[in-house]
């Protein structure tokens, strides 16, 4: 009997201890993360052609890192010569964790909340995720950078200052927790900054239906062209023809964002009062155009079933779409066209890029803000790991380091001439960055410490044909010119930084889905207006408290 009691007691005790351990939130009892422990061997010296003058000897460390651009299944440690160069120069072993694009924020947030984030991660910073970021900072779940970091890593600091967001957050948090990565550093094309999202237009079809090939179109102009394409089928595509091919998200950008600057957020009106953009007149106007395109069969009749990038496939791979609305990054413009030619057999000139304007003839957008993704560190990161990554970023932010993130190895793939201009050393058409098996250096890109993103160098990259770089410059330029301060609005930092439970809940509205639903369910334009008004009414419980906060 005694033994039974003992057994039962021991079981209960073990059960409770295990239970408490499972529920406990503290990290104190955990051993230090092994990934952050420097190994005591293999001190390495930075190679002399690296371009910086530091002669620091590094102890080997293991650095864990996460962002969606980590190539899944690719071993950066043994991968290609560029990754080997970086890893040897800074003497670390790289543990990259890929996160799917759609799960980026929630996966990283879950790791941060569980106090199990990688040493370094890219946080998908934006007005929609600012509340979470702020919460993480308040709780000490993100490392605060040492106060002297700007003097220790001056190149990074220079880039940081151009991002606007970095200094704003520093003021807000009273220290640096995030280092936003700059889209542009040497080649900022405008302030406010335009987005690269562009119309993809089949120029040959536009000409064939008797319309002018331009570098900007209003929404009605494009609908008219699409209507003619549907009627005349200039490419003789038959039943597969999709005059406009866009998924639900891109349709919302095309019909709503391009016509109504604040369609999915709040804004300060001319009376100084905040209002809700979804209820603005130009949003309804865009919605009507969307319905018109859908109900007349100009827009893909099953646009709501298209997965991410399937619309791109119809244009670029199958050659059956007349118009799409997709990314138009300078760095990718040439690649898009090469792929288009390879897949469809059409000449690259048939692939036109243009700016989409609203019905008022103006370009509509909110300031993109000069950053994309912010570097952050685990609060438990080892000092050696933290400093190593900062050193790496300092290198990629230097004049000798940043071209390498896109062009490969200095002295082998590129160099600078007597004037200091970048020159290419590879034959034209060499694919430096890209998929494993196709590209020379699959590791090239934003993963290995990049703080100046590709958009910037693309304007100076001699591997991209001059005509395409000029085309991109022209697109950015006309967006900055064909607009008003209201249609192309500067960032409202008060709103951007507004962080309350009410706003957080209001941001949970999935505008792409909601507006797609209104369009597909309407029986007529009058019915669309009724559905839209009913929807606006139903959202008031979420919207009104935010407006009350902002206006009081």
């Amino acid at each position, binding site marked *: *009997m005694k*033994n*039974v*009691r003992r057994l*039962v007691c021991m079981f209960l005790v073990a*059960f409770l201890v*295990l*239970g408490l351990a*499972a*529920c*406990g*939130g*503290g990290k104190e009892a955990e051993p230090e993360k092994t990934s952050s422990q420097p190994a005591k061997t293999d001190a390495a010296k930075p190679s002399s052609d690296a371009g910086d003058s530091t002669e620091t000897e590094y102890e080997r460390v293991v650095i864990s890192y996460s962002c969606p651009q980590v190539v899944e299944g690719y071993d950066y440690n043994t991968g290609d010569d560029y990754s080997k160069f970086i890893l040897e120069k800074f003497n670390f072993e790289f543990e990259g964790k890929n996160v799917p694009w759609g*799960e980026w*924020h*929630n996966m990283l*947030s*879950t790791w*941060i*909340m*569980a*106090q199990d984030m990688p040493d370094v991660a890219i946080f998908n910073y934006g007005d*929609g*995720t600012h*509340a*979470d970021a702020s919460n993480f900072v308040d*709780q*000490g*779940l993100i490392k605060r950078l040492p106060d002297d970091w700007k003097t220790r890593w001056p190149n990074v600091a220079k880039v940081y200052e151009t991002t606007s967001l970095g200094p704003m957050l520093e003021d807000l948090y009273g220290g640096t927790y995030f280092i936003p990565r700059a889209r542009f550093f040497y080649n900022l094309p405008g302030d406010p900054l335009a987005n690269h999202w562009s119309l993809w237009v089949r120029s040959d079809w536009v000409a064939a239906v008797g319309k002018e090939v331009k570098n900007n179109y209003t929404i009605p102009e494009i609908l008219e062209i699409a209507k003619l394409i549907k009627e005349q089928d200039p490419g003789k595509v038959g*039943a597969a023809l999709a005059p406009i091919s866009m998924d*639900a998200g891109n349709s919302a950008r095309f019909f709503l964002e391009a016509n109504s600057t604040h369609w999915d957020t709040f804004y300060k009106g001319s009376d100084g009062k905040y209002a809700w953009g979804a209820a603005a007149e130009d949003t309804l106007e865009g919605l009507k155009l969307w319905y018109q395109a859908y109900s007349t069969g100009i827009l893909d*009749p*099953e646009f*709501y*079933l298209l997965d991410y990038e399937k619309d791109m496939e119809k244009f670029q791979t199958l050659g059956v779409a007349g118009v799409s609305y997709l990314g138009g990054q300078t760095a990718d413009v040439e690649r898009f066209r090469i792929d288009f030619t390879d897949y469809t057999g059409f000449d690259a000139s048939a692939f036109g890029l243009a700016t989409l304007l609203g019905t008022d003839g103006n370009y509509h957008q909110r300031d993109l803000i000069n950053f994309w993704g912010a570097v952050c560190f685990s609060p438990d990161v080892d000092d050696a790991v933290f400093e190593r990554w900062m050193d790496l970023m300092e290198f990629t932010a230097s004049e000798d380091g940043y071209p390498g993130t896109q062009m490969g190895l200095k002295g082998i793939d590129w160099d600078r001439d007597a004037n200091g201009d970048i020159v290419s050393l590879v034959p034209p058409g060499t694919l430096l960055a890209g998929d494993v098996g196709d590209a020379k250096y699959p590791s090239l890109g934003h993963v290995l410490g990049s703080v100046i993103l590709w958009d910037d160098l693309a304007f100076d990259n001699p591997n991209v044909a001059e005509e395409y770089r000029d085309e991109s410059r022209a697109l950015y330029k006309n967006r900055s010119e064909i607009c008003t301060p209201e249609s192309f609005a500067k960032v409202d930092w008060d709103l951007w930084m507004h962080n309350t*439970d009410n706003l*957080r*809940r209001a*941001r*949970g509205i*999935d505008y*792409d*889905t*909601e507006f*797609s*639903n209104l369009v*597909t*369910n309407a029986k007529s334009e009058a019915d669309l207006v009724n559905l839209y008004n009913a929807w606006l009414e*139903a*959202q008031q*419980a*979420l919207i009104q408290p935010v407006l009350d906060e902002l206006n009081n």
Partner: protein
Amino acid sequence: MAASSGYSGKPSPKHRIARLGRDIWKNRGKYFLVLPGIVWYAIFAYIPIFGLSLAFKKYMAKMGLFGSPWIGLANFENVFADPAFMKSIYTTLWINAGRLIFVFPVPIILALMFNEVRLGRSKKILQSIFTFPHFLSWVIVGSIMISVLGQRGVVNSILTLLFGTEPIGFLGTPAYFQPIVYLTDIWKSTGWSAIIYLAAISGIDTEQYQAAEIDGSTRLQRIWYITLPGIKPTIIVLFILAVGNLMSGGFDQIFNLSNPATIRVAEILDMYIYRITFRGSVDFSFSAAVALFRSVINLLLLLTADRITKRIDGSGLLA
């Protein structure tokens, strides 16, 4: 038992524990085999119950579950302020009630039909064919449905060929959403679910069938008067469990079959929880409040179903 132990009344707790201890010791081999199951259940089913307290707190990761500040019913107030929440409850109940009516009986009918197939080989082949779809994920089924029911899919091609009709947007029409949910559910799960009923049927004494046959009963009469009553307890248990799941379940299916055009008739509670937890700002407390509400409703539905079946039939799931 009490009388045999020499006591005239109910045994005291002390004696009951002692008796339990003796029983455990006597059957220690069996209890040892059960132990992993108990430990699994304790760790994964009972300990996480502490997590429900999150619904009444403002979760702070650094402070942990127990240290996070208590905010009472504030999360619930926010939950009920969201119109999408109440809508998702209605949608969940509507879809799952339909499931009870249209999907739940199908495996029973299939099991009865299988039971009537006399050729063992054909029976096995048929059973394998019906069971196979169970092993396909809903992601794959979703893709298959686009190929079958899309505007350029098989069904529309046949309709156009035979009747010259314009393509119908089956997957984008809210009115078709529920039927598609039930049909795909039946196609995917019926074969698998029928296994339980077949097992129950195999437990029915065959002498009853022989006696009925001698008495001149028809096949339908044997099904009605022998097979169905024989598997009634199984049907009742599974029915009560299905009622207890009215507020949950079906996430994978509906998530993969829905799209922006049908979202208003498709956003069930689990999808709502997913959206507010991961698509917006990460707020575990808010999600926990919704999940707790769902669990409470599920429990009430289960108890109600159990009570009703007891009233009607005299047997139920719970003692």
